[in-house]
């Protein structure tokens, strides 16, 4: 069972308290964008077998959205961080690099 620490209220929440929200750090494309950009925003996902950044909501806790870095091949959690950011914070990246030296990096 997944256990993620909510970065807002500090609770180590197990999966039953949380709802998953899919890939994080998607760049939003709206009216006026090209079809390819809008399709990528709506549907194309990295879906990596390995390091994945994703959105979670502490649904049965503080109710807030936060982000997590997790390995989809082993379910290892690299860390969680608040959602008010456009890319993963440096300490999360450093933590991932320490555990997954072959990781190609965010983007």
């Amino acid at each position, binding site marked *: 069972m997944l256990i993620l620490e909510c970065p807002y209220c500090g609770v180590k929440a197990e999966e039953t308290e949380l709802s998953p929200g*899919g*890939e994080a750090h998607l760049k939003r494309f709206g009216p006026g964008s090209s079809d390819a950009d809008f399709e990528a925003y709506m*549907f*194309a*996902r*990295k*879906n990596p077998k390995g390091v994945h950044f994703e959105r979670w909501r502490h649904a049965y806790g503080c109710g807030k959205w936060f982000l997590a870095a997790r390995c989809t091949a082993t379910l290892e959690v690299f860390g969680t961080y608040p959602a008010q950011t456009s890319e993963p914070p440096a300490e999360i990246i450093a933590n991932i690099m320490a555990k997954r030296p072959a990781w190609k990096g965010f983007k």
Partner: protein
Amino acid sequence: MKRYSVFAIAREALNFHQGWERAWKSPAPKASYDAIIVGAGGHGLATAHYLGKNHGIRNVAIIEKGWLGGGNTGRNTTIIRSNYLQDSSAAIYEKARSLYETLSQDLNYNVMFSPRGVMMLAQTHHEVRGYLRTAHANSLQGVQTEFISPQRVKELCPIMNIDGPRYPVLGALWQPRGGTGRHDAVAWGYARACSDMGMDIIQQCEVTGVRSENGKVTGVETTKGFIGTKKLGIVVAGHSGQVADMAGFRLPVESMALQALVSEPIKPCMDVVVMANTVHGYMSQSDKGEMVIGGGTDGFNNYTQRGSFQHVEETLRALIETFPMLSRLKMLRQWGGIVDMTGDRSPIISKTPLGNCFINCGWGTGGFKAIPGSGWAMADLMAKGEPGPLAAEFDMWRFREGRFIDESVAAGVAH
């Protein structure tokens, strides 16, 4: 290939059963092929089978990372039905269901297709309206279904409690010609028929790269070396994103774990398949007597072929009101498979941005029922280079153009 028959059993019995040959060969890969299929699951093997049978393309290799039929083909709940709302879905699933009816004869391999009937329970008024609509759509599509009363549900499945306080049974969409099959036998039967046509099934061989020249595929790098090909079919379900990445394009697909479980074997008590989409559960009884139970996917990206325990608990909790007997049953085994979910919950059978490279993926939680139809349509696409009528609507560009085949709304969750 020696044909399986009652005479073969008698002949081999006199020989102490020492004369049975291997069902399929395990050759080393040749330098190149006319077509390579990546993925020896049901869909991949069916594609190869119909390439040979319908289109005469027999210089084919099927490459498999693990062992044949060891992915989702060996991990599903074996339900076969075709009561879909959208026309293009109904067409391909009904093609598959009708091919299942004669598959044992076609393959000379008993796939144990059992058309015992599938009912999808309506447990809210919204669902009643939805299934009435589906029943009307099905009668226009030529798929035999009907909306039946709660009393008829009780007659068909007496172990069910139809007047639960929270989720009473208000009726059901009944497809009498749906049912179940033997999932492993489908893969084994196709594999045997493919091998008999001279195709090479190469197991324990992982694809590590896709080689191309001037925008056209030339072959695949594998753990057993480079293998050249004129045409490439990617049929790898949960790992579609990985192989597509090697071929240089991205798919509208996310991989998630879907779990199923079986109870201890009990005496025959239920001879239909029941799906309850409001509460996310479906159940049938296997020939061994186990109750085979499935639910919805875990909600997050996952490649581990195991899921979270609370989903198993949720599925059972949901079914207990309708099947009170479940509360006294011990659960025996639980497992997970990695399903590839698309945005509209319909599959992709498509050309790709890479020339002569084709993809068949996105079957999500409901691929087993579609195996023969999917293979038929994919073989058509690979042989002709253009999709036939079954596959035409399922191209990967429908997401850009907004031509969804929206079964996520039409079919509810389990599908």
